[in-house]
């Protein structure tokens, strides 16, 4: 505690106060369940755009993507090409455009509302989807706190548990009070801080490396440098693949098959149908936001994630040169942060002027809180609105529903924080596991529901359940990797994806589709723009 940075603490406090004030105004605006769950569909253009960017730019994006850039360089570029920016942009195009009309027509506030309407299944499928959503959001939540721990220790010198507890208190406070309004308005500020933070620090760090030419040259020299300077083999930590788009099929993480299953299926499709992302497209005010919004999200998101990965790669080069020593960080309670996840804070501390460096904490906090608050609202809505109000006790009053929301936010926030105090693996892995559940449970019910007329409630129910169970079993049996030695290495999402797809397709073809009238009313079919049927 003796090494606490008082200036940094001041910046931290200023950020927290700003968020608390915004959260307070959100709370004053929140009166009804629809306000709490979906801001009653009243979000403006920039609030919506930055909400989408903020919802998928988590602590993992800032700390984890830099860690991945450090570890595997460009061999995982697919995460940047078809990762979070792709997901939010195309979610708005493929899901948001149709959903806007359906929301106004049927008062759809959550993904589960859509399932109940589209599949004429107001209880079973709604309850199943609600439970699955809570579980996936909870898993995603746990992964967020490690990032806060890393920066509060490195930047401020205060213990992980204290730093993450302060963040928890603030985020739970404003979500309990203001639900979606507070979440969206605070995310507006948080996204701006994140974007500015990365856009400023990336070029400064490259300059510290000696500029773009030096960086460009040195990346190719990493295998030699790490052998001479660090005494490690050229291939150590994927050293020979840093400048390549992928490795051979048999390699975990950088192999093309692994890239395909992790960054071709899990990340883009998982985020595309993630409950906390899909629910965002039910919150904006006017349909015209779906016009330029997707392009702006993409244009903001790609440089953000590319800049972060460049910082990680710069750290790898500096480490190989011997300019930078990166140690794994052991937090109190035995939580060990993988050393590659320390790439960003370590190089930032070495390369950035002090005045810029202390802004790293608000940037990471912004990333963490902007995702955490959205996950909390989503999970709370699943319990109070989908399970209690629409399945278990339909007579629950508006006021009681809002209070149930608040209670659930508190329970989920505190319990996920408590679990995060026990050792976690590399930050990214935990979040990818949550995304595996999301893609295997929700891809077919949402995308199939919107674009395929044969998709029905039996296919949605059993496909979702199969995806959930098989994914959990896969991770229990294989962990994260499925490796056939010398042949292929795959990410463990594959069995669940195959199983849920097979069950969904089989039941969709074997059982009767819903009535043509319902399909027409719910805008189901191979078209995006309503009123323009597909070409068959």
């Amino acid at each position: 505690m003796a090494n606490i940075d008082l200036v940094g603490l001041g910046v931290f406090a200023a950020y927290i106060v700003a968020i608390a004030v915004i959260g307070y105004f959100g709370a004053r605006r929140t009166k009804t369940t629809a306000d709490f769950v979906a801001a009653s569909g009243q979000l403006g253009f920039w609030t919506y755009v930055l909400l989408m960017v903020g919802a998928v730019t988590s602590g993992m994006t800032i700390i984890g993507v830099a860690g991945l850039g450090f570890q595997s360089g460009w061999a995982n570029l697919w995460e940047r090409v078809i990762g979070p920016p792709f997901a939010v942009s195309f979610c708005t195009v493929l899901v948001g455009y149709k959903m806007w009309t359906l929301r106004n027509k049927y008062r759809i506030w959550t993904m589960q509302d859509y399932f109940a309407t589209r599949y004429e299944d107001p209880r079973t499928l709604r309850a199943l989807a609600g439970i699955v959503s809570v579980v996936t959001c909870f898993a995603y939540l746990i992964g967020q706190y490690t990032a806060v721990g890393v920066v509060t220790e490195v930047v401020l010198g205060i213990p992980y548990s204290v730093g993450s507890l302060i963040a928890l208190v603030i985020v739970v406070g404003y979500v309990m009070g203001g639900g979606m309004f507070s979440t969206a308005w605070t995310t507006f500020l948080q996204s701006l801080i994140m974007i500015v933070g990365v856009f400023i620090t990336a070029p400064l760090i490259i300059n510290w490396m000696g500029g773009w030419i030096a960086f460009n040259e040195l990346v190719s020299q990493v295998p030699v440098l790490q052998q001479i300077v660090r005494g490690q083999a050229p291939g150590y930590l994927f050293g020979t693949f840093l400048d390549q788009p992928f490795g051979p099929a048999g390699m975990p993480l950088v192999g093309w098959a692994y890239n395909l299953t992790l960054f071709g299926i899990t990340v883009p499709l998982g985020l595309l149908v993630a409950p906390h992302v899909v629910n965002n497209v039910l919150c904006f005010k006017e349909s015209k936001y779906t016009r330029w919004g997707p392009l702006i999200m993409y244009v903001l998101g790609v440089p953000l994630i590319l800049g972060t990965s460049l910082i990680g790669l710069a750290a790898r080069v500096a480490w190989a040169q011997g300019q930078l020593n990166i140690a794994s960080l052991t937090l109190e309670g035995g939580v060990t942060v993988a050393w590659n996840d320390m790439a960003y804070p370590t190089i930032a501390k070495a390369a950035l002027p002090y005045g810029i460096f202390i802004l790293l904490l608000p940037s990471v906090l912004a990333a963490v809180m902007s995702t955490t608050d959205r996950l909390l609202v989503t999970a709370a809505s699943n319990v109070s609105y989908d399970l209690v109000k629409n399945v278990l006790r339909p007579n629950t009053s508006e006021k009681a529903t809002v209070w149930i929301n608040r209670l659930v936010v508190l329970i989920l926030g505190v319990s996920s924080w408590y679990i995060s105090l026990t050792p976690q693996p590399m930050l990214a892995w935990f979040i990818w596991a949550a995304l595996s559940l999301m893609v295997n449970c929700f891809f077919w019910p949402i995308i199939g529901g919107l674009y395929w007329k044969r998709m029905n409630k039996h296919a949605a129910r059993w496909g979702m359940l199969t995806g959930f169970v098989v994914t959990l079993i896969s991770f229990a049996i294989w962990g994260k990797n499925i490796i056939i030695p010398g042949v292929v290495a795959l990410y463990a999402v594959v069995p669940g994806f195959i199983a849920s797809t097979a069950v969904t397709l089989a039941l969709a073809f074997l059982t009767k589709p819903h009535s043509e009238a319902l399909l027409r009313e719910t805008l189901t079919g191979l078209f995006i723009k309503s009123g323009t049927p597909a070409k068959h």
Partner: protein
Amino acid sequence: MMAFIFFNLAPLPVTVEGLSISRFLVFFGMPSLAALSITPSLSSERILGMQPLTFFCLAIPIVVQVAVLLIWAIKWRAPD
């Protein structure tokens, strides 16, 4: 079409020293375009530490997605 878009946009970021796009264009048989691109003297055929194939794996999907989203915005009309 993609090559046209790419090679016409490419000189823009190349003003940042170190992006060896001119060598790239020569590599892909487009020396006249290479002569037009603004590039400082370079000792590398890499861009941001990427091999040529890697750069294209990054750039082409991004350009395609931007193009799709741009076309979507231009062709957009309000829902019924």
